């Protein structure tokens, strides 16, 4: 799994500025697990797209503020998160599983059956 630089954005939406969410990526024998921090993104504003080309994580920050609020100090200035990844061939994107709770996305992408480890016995002839 490697990160994709936005050299040639595919669609118009990619031009909008976005924050890069911090991630953790783990790999064990059966697949890859990704955690991403997307605080302030409600469930219905999160997009996780997995296809042959890769993985796109995108989320819109929607924090409710009372009417007439004027910003006094802001560290989060862009209301959007986005990050793109390329995936390697042995990952089975059709069997992935995602959970989103309290602004943390957990995505599990298993390896295809044939890519899972096999013990190879060396026969001494």
């Amino acid at each position, binding site marked *: 799994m490697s990160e994709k630089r936005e050299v040639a954005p595919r669609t118009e939406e990619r031009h909008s500025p976005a924050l890069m969410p*911090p991630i953790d*990526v783990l790999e*064990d024998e059966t697949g890859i697990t990704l955690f991403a921090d997307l605080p302030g993104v409600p469930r219905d504003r999160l997009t996780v797209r997995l296809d042959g080309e890769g993985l796109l994580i995108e989320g819109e920050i929607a924090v409710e503020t*009372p009417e007439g609020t004027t910003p006094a100090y802001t*560290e*989060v200035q862009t209301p959007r998160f986005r990050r793109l990844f390329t995936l390697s061939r042995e990952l089975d994107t059709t069997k992935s599983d995602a959970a989103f709770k309290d602004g943390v996305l957990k995505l599990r992408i298993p390896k295809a059956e044939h890519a899972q480890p096999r013990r190879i016995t060396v026969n001494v002839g």
Partner: protein
Amino acid sequence: MYESLLRFPTDLFAELDRMQREMQGFGGLSLPSSIRAVGRGAFPAINIGSTPTAIRIDAFAPGIDPAKLSISIDRGLLTIAGERPSDVPQESEKLSVYAHERTVGSFKRVVSLPEDADPARVEATYRDGVVGISIQRREPAQPRRIEVK
């Protein structure tokens, strides 16, 4: 105003100096920063908003147990502190860790509140990984319309 008279197109240092001055603020004024300001990437990131009746603070702290979050106000200082568990297990023969960017462990942010903040009327919520704190202002600061008789 007279900058163009002093700046030569080939002078790289002058150009950098001008850019730096522009970045410091509008019209050459450098904006003061809070004495408690921390560098980029502090956890949690904080946004502060203001209304005539309240002060609103949003702390972007995903994946936290709200029961373990400590929010306190003491002498005009709001402190948000807590601990964030790690989702990354120890790396072993069967487990590889490729990225470990998410903040782990204890965190603390301190915000100085305006003088009219009322520490007795504070509400905090936790939604979608954001701690939202509303602090009401004391009455006199609210604008009042005075009738002229």
